[in-house]
């Protein structure tokens, strides 16, 4: 048993990776799904044990193949990436029980083997990119996850052919982003001669005035900005989320962009540091305005959408704005908000997209007019949308409130009044688009010609409600999440300066 725990960091990535080819060989019925489920649950177990280890006994450094860093690849787990691992594998563990019926409905049954293979690869890439302590390795894993994500998005083509163009655009922009990231890594390597993140952090301080280092920083931020859909580089996101199969949207919306945010955090605070002049300037003159624009333009665009999946996709753009804003604030409270929101936003959007998947299972497309009057016929699904929607708005006793609390706290600590006001103003925009749906579902008349609609099956409702309950549970008892996030923020800011 101790051997298992000793190699947990490697198993976290290796198990999903090795099971992917196995999965592609499986053909019939439920087998691929079952394998993916088992792997996800194992990954969840692994990430929990890693987080416990980290919180108990400090950072874990695992040397791949026993090659000592900085020459070998090191898997380095500290509080922040253990937390992100937990988010990714946790969402996957909840999304898969939900996935079976939804995928059976939306994806060609003959392709389930390939579908779940792509899913497992995507999971592998996200987990690997998070856990690794090697900058180039991050690129490789993120490309594994991105390539499989393009495939997963394109799997929605059976429902709507626009999934193909969405996947294509995602591919082009994603590749440009990844290539920018590699250029940045290359420039850093050119100057420091190392790829290990800890080693980079040690070797950089005397070199901060080097142009190549600064250019490398810019390339990394822009590259990851594309991947995390930072405004105005978000154009791939709405269509990709809208036309992907429901399960894929649930998984990608709650995890993919989060990992990119994590990578940005890692480079900003571990590799570089807010005390470097050019990093500090980025916060105030680039992140801050872009984050605020994202919050407003994302929310405003969401208000005008008729397709509900696209509506929440635009809302994701706005929510990513909150995360970037937390970074821009540059203090412990702001950074706590960012790290918290990684988790909290995964819960909200996971629940919302799951609920939309339930609706899609019953009535096909999910438009604002299509759901009119459905609140009565699918009471559990729409109660879930209402609950998660409240969390998105940031009503107290939900996780959304906790994130916003810290965000506003951070703004006030800096004395940035207008920013605090803008944060609340943008959450009011969320009230409008969430309420549009609630009003249509509960107080609208059913469109003519729609027969009776039955509630979604329990197999999908149970994971959905697990997410909704988590939205409230972690909103009322935020001790666990805030203490991890606060610890992360304190390490980042303490270590960087």
């Amino acid at each position, binding site marked *: 048993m101790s051997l298992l725990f000793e190699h947990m960091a490697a198993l976290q990535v290796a198990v999903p990776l090795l099971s992917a080819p196995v999965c592609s060989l499986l053909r019939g019925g439920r087998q691929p799904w079952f394998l993916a489920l088992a792997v996800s649950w194992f990954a969840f177990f692994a990430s929990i044990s890693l987080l416990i280890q980290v919180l108990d006994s400090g950072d874990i450094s695992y040397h791949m193949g026993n090659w000592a860093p900085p020459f070998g690849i090191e898997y380095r787990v500290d509080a922040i990436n253990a937390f992100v691992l937990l988010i990714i594998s946790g969402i996957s563990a909840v999304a898969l029980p939900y996935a079976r019926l939804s995928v059976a409905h939306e994806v060609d049954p003959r392709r389930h083997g390939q579908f779940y293979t792509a899913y497992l690869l995507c999971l592998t890439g996200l987990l690997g990119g998070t856990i690794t302590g090697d900058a180039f390795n991050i690129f490789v894993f993120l*490309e594994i996850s991105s390539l499989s994500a*393009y495939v997963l998005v394109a799997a929605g083509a059976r429902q709507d*052919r626009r999934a*193909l163009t969405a996947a294509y655009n995602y591919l082009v922009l994603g590749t440009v982003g990844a*290539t920018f990231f590699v*250029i940045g890594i290359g420039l850093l*390597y050119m100057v420091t001669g190392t790829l290990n993140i800890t080693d980079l952090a040690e070797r950089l301080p005397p070199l901060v005035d080097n142009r190549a280092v600064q250019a490398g920083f810019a390339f990394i931020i822009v590259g990851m900005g594309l991947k995390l859909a930072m405004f105005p580089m978000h154009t791939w996101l709405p269509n990709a989320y809208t036309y992907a199969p429901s399960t894929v949207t649930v998984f990608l919306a709650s995890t993919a962009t989060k990992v990119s945010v994590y990578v940005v955090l890692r480079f900003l605070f571990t590799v570089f540091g807010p005390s470097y002049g050019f990093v500090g300037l980025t916060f105030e003159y680039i992140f801050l305005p872009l984050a605020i624009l994202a919050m407003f333009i994302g929310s405003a665009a969401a208000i005008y959408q008729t397709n509900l999946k696209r509506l929440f996709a635009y809302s994701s753009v706005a929510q990513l704005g909150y995360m970037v804003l937390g970074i821009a604030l540059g203090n412990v409270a702001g950074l706590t908000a960012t790290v918290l929101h990684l988790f909290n936003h995964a819960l909200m959007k996971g629940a919302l997209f799951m609920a939309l998947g339930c609706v899609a299972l019953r009535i096909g497309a999910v438009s604002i007019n299509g759901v009119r009057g459905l609140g009565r016929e699918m009471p559990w699904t729409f109660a879930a949308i209402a609950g998660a929607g409240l969390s998105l708005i940031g009503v107290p006793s939900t996780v959304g409130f906790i994130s916003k609390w810290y965000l506003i706290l951070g703004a006030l600590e800096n004395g940035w009044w207008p920013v605090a006001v803008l944060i609340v103003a943008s959450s009011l925009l969320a009230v409008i688009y969430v309420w549009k749906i609630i009003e249509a579902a509960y107080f609208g008349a059913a469109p003519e010609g729609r027969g009776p609609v039955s509630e979604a099956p329990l197999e999908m409702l149970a994971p959905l409600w697990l997410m909704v309950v988590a939205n409230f549970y972690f909103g009322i008892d935020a001790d666990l999440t805030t203490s991890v996030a606060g610890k992360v923020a304190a390490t980042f800011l303490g270590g960087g300066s």
Partner: protein
Amino acid sequence: MLDAILAHYNYWLIIILMMIGLYIVISRGNLVKKIVGLNIFQTSVFLLYITLAKVTGGTAPILTGKPEIFSNPLPHVLILTAIVVGIATTALGFALVVRIRESYGSIEEDDILAAERAEEEIAVKEALS
């Protein structure tokens, strides 16, 4: 100035290649050409890595026991990985283009956008009626 440019001619070439690639990705409406641009863009990065591995006077890193200067082998290895990623991306991109061509009957961005916009308008009209 000229000296500085000439001394770093490899970097200048890489930058030119990079910009050509990026320009093609942005400016071309043909989906296949976009992928070609993407390839050029990525290739320039491969070259960047290869060129920074060069050590003046260094030879291939084959251990013969004699003290020699080697070129750095690590970037070569890295770029092997990146090439694999690049090939996978290209293959997937082309696969998508084939599927797009099958369902839209075109690989020109303008045609596809027009078709999508028409679909969108129908959807909105249905929603409003």
